[in-house]
C-alpha cells in the first residue's frame, strides 16, 4: 500500500533487507524500482519498447505511489516538463526509446547544465531508415557527451537495481547530475527473468532540494535575483571563461560520482577471471551473450575472461587499463553499427591494436554465441596467440 511505505536508508533498501525472487519482465522491473523510489512525479510519452514500463508507472500513480503523472505531447516536451518539475524541486522519472531519445536530444545537455538529478530510463532501439523498432543501442553513442551519468543494465535485475541506485548517486550534493539508465529494448523489457526484490513497503528517503548545489526555482531559495551580468549577452573573455568554468564543473561533478558508483553499484565494471590473456568486454545484453560465448571457448580449451562495463559515463578508464594490463586480446561485441564501446576502450588503453571491435549486430539481429566465438578464433593464430598482423578493429 502506497500510504504505508516507510523511508529507509538506501543501503538498507539495496542490500540490508532479505529479497524475494519474482519472475517478471524488464518493464515490470522498472515499475518495481519506481514504486520504491519515492518519486514525486513521472511524465510519459508512448514509444515502443518503452511504453509498457510507463503504463505500469501510471498504475503506480493511480495506486498513490506517485503524486503526479501525465502523458506529455512529445518526447522533447516531456523532457522539458521533467526539467521544469525538477527545477521546482521535485524528484522525477521518465523513460523513452531510440527515436524518442533523438527527438528530445536538445534537453539532455540542458538537464546536465542545470545540474538536475533527473533519472531517465532508455529502452534502446533502432533509430534510422529503414524503420526499426528492434533492439540496438546506437543512441547511447549520441548521448556520451551530454554530461549525464550513463549506466547500462545487462538484465531485468540490473535494470531494477540501477534505477534506484541512479536516484541516490545522481542526487548526491557533490554530483547532482542527470542519470540515464540504459537497457537493450525487447531483450530485457519484454522477456521474463528472475528478479530479487526487497519488500514493497520500503522506499528511498525523499529528495531534499535544499541539499542541491544550485537554487530551486520556487521563490523560497535564495538568491532570488540570480545574476546581475548574464553570460549570454556579453561578448568578452570573462563571460566565456565563466561559461567554460560551468562546463568544467559538470565534468568534475561526474568525476566525483565515481566514489558513489563504487559505493552503491560495487564499481564501474566487473571482471571475471582477471588473469586471463583474452577478454570479452561488453555492456548491456552483449554481456549475457558473452557469458555464453565464454562457456563455448572454455570447452574448446581457450581461456578467456569477461569485463562487464556498468558505468559508461563516467567511463571506467583506470579500471579498464588495470584489468587489461596483461591482456593480449580484447574482443568487444556490441548491439550497434558504430562500435562506440570499442572506440571508448581503444581510447582508454595503450597498445589498442589488442582491441577487436566486433561482432556488431543491429537492425533487430540477435547475437548468436558463435559470432563472438568466431571473432576470438579469427583473432588467434594456430598457437593460440593474437595474430600479429591483425588490424585494430573492423
Amino acid at each position: 500500500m502506497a500510504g504505508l511505505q516507510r523511508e529507509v536508508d538506501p543501503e538498507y533498501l539495496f542490500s540490508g533487507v532479505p529479497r524475494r525472487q519474482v519472475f517478471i519482465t524488464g518493464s515490470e522491473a522498472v515499475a518495481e524500482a519506481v514504486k520504491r523510489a519515492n518519486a514525486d512525479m513521472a511524465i510519459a510519452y508512448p514509444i515502443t519498447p518503452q511504453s509498457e514500463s510507463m503504463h505500469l508507472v501510471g498504475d503506480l500513480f493511480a495506486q498513490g505511489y506517485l503524486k503526479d503523472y501525465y502523458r506529455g505531447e512529445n518526447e522533447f516536451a516531456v523532457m522539458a516538463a521533467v526539467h521544469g518539475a525538477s527545477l521546482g524541486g521535485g524528484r522525477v522519472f521518465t523513460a523513452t526509446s531510440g527515436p524518442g531519445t533523438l527527438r528530445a536530444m536538445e534537453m539532455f545537455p540542458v538537464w546536465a547544465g542545470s545540474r538536475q538529478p533527473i533519472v531517465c530510463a532508455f529502452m534502446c532501439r533502432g533509430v534510422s531508415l529503414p524503420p526499426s523498432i528492434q533492439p540496438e543501442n546506437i543512441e547511447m553513442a549520441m548521448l556520451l557527451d551530454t554530461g549525464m551519468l550513463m549506466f547500462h543494465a545487462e538484465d531485468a535485475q540490473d535494470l531494477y537495481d540501477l534505477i534506484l541506485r541512479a536516484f541516490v548517486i545522481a542526487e548526491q550534493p557533490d554530483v547532482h547530475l542527470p542519470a540515464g539508465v540504459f537497457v537493450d529494448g525487447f531483450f530485457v523489457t519484454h522477456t521474463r527473468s528472475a528478479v530479487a526484490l526487497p519488500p514493497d513497503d520500503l522506499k528511498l528517503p525523499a529528495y531534499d532540494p535544499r541539499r542541491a548545489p544550485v537554487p530551486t526555482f520556487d521563490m523560497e531559495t535564495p538568491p532570488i535575483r540570480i545574476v546581475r551580468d548574464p553570460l549570454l549577452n556579453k561578448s568578452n573573455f570573462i563571460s566565456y571563461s565563466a561559461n567554460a568554468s560551468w562546463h568544467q564543473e559538470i565534468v568534475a561533478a561526474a568525476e566525483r560520482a565515481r566514489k558513489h558508483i563504487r559505493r552503491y553499484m560495487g564499481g564501474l565494471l566487473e571482471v571475471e577471471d582477471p588473469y586471463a590473456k583474452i577478454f570479452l568486454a561488453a555492456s548491456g545484453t552483449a554481456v549475457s551473450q558473452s557469458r555464453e560465448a565464454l562457456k563455448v571457448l572454455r570447452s574448446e580449451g581457450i581461456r578467456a575472461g569477461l569485463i562487464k562495463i556498468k558505468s559508461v559515463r563516467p567511463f571506467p578508464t583506470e579500471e579498464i587499463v588495470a584489468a587489461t594490463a596483461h591482456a593480449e586480446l580484447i574482443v568487444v561485441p556490441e548491439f550497434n553499427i558504430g562500435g562506440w564501446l570499442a572506440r571508448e576502450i581503444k581510447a582508454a588503453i595503450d597498445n589498442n591494436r589488442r582491441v577487436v571491435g566486433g561482432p556488431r549486430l543491429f537492425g533487430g539481429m540477435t547475437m548468436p554465441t558463435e559470432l563472438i566465438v568466431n571473432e576470438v578464433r579469427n583473432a588467434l593464430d594456430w598457437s593460440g596467440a593474437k595474430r600479429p598482423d591483425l588490424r585494430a578493429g573492423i
Partner: protein
Amino acid sequence: MIKGLFRISPGFEDVMPAEYKELVTTGPYGREVGVSDLGTFKELIEEHPLCAGCAESLALRLILASLPNPEDTVIVGSTGCSSLAFSQVAVHNIHSLFGNQNAVATGLKRALRLRFPDKVKDVLVIAGDGATVDIGLDMVMQSWFRRELITTIMLDNEVYANTGGQESGMSPQGAVLNMAPLGKKFPKVALPEIAREAGCVYVATISPDLPRRLGKVVRRAILVAREIGPSYVQIFCPCPTNFKFRSAEVLQKIRERQKEGTFQVREYVSPEAEAYLAGLEGAKQREEQ
C-alpha cells in the same frame, strides 16, 4: 516567499549593491503596488540591455509592476530579445530553450503545487512571438488543452528580432523581412482565437500604450490561472530596430496600427472566469470602501 528571506544578513549591508538594498527597502514583495505606483517603489527589472525605444522593454516593466504576487511568482521565458532582460529580474525566472517554455512551466507548476499545497505560486510564461506561435506552438497549445494553470504572455514584436529580423508567424502579411524576401505570404496567426478554442478561460490583446489597462489585464490573467484555467495575453510590441522606425515613435506606431484596424485591444472572459473575477474584484472594491 517566507518572510524575511530577502533581508540582508547582518554584516553584509555595506557590500550589497545599491539596487539590492533598494529592493529590500522599497521593493514590491508583499505589497499592493501596480502600474499607477511606478516611481514610488523599486521595480523588479534592472538595467536591461534591450534597444532604445523597445516596446518589449516597456511591456516587461509594466508586466512586472502588475504581478499580484511577486514574492511567489516564477517566470518561464524563452530564447529571444526578452530573455536578455530576464537575468536582471528579481523574481526566479527560467530560460531553458527556444520553444519549450510551456512544457517547462507545466512541470514547474505541478511540482510547486505538490511542494507548496497551501501557498499560491503563480507560474507565468513570457515569450516572444516566434517562441509562442512558431517553434513552441505545439507545447503552448498542448498546455492549454490540458488546462494547465499557467498564464502565457506573448510579447508580439511581429519578427524574430534577436536573430536579425526574420519573418515570424506574427509578422503582418506582405512584410518584407529576412527569410521573406518577397514579402510574407500569409496573415498574422490568429492566436487569440486559437487560445479561446484551445481552452483558455481568459484571453486579451493589449499594448504598452495603455499601461493601466495592461496592468489590469495581466492581473486578471494571473488570477484566473490560479483556479479557473489557463490564460493568454498577447501584447503588441512593435520593434523599431527591425522595422526601421525611430525609437521615440513606438507608441505612435501602435496608435497608427490601432487606427488602421491591424491591431485591436480585445478581451475574452469565459463565464466561469467572469464570475470568479467578479467575486474577487467585488470583494476588493468592498474592501476599499
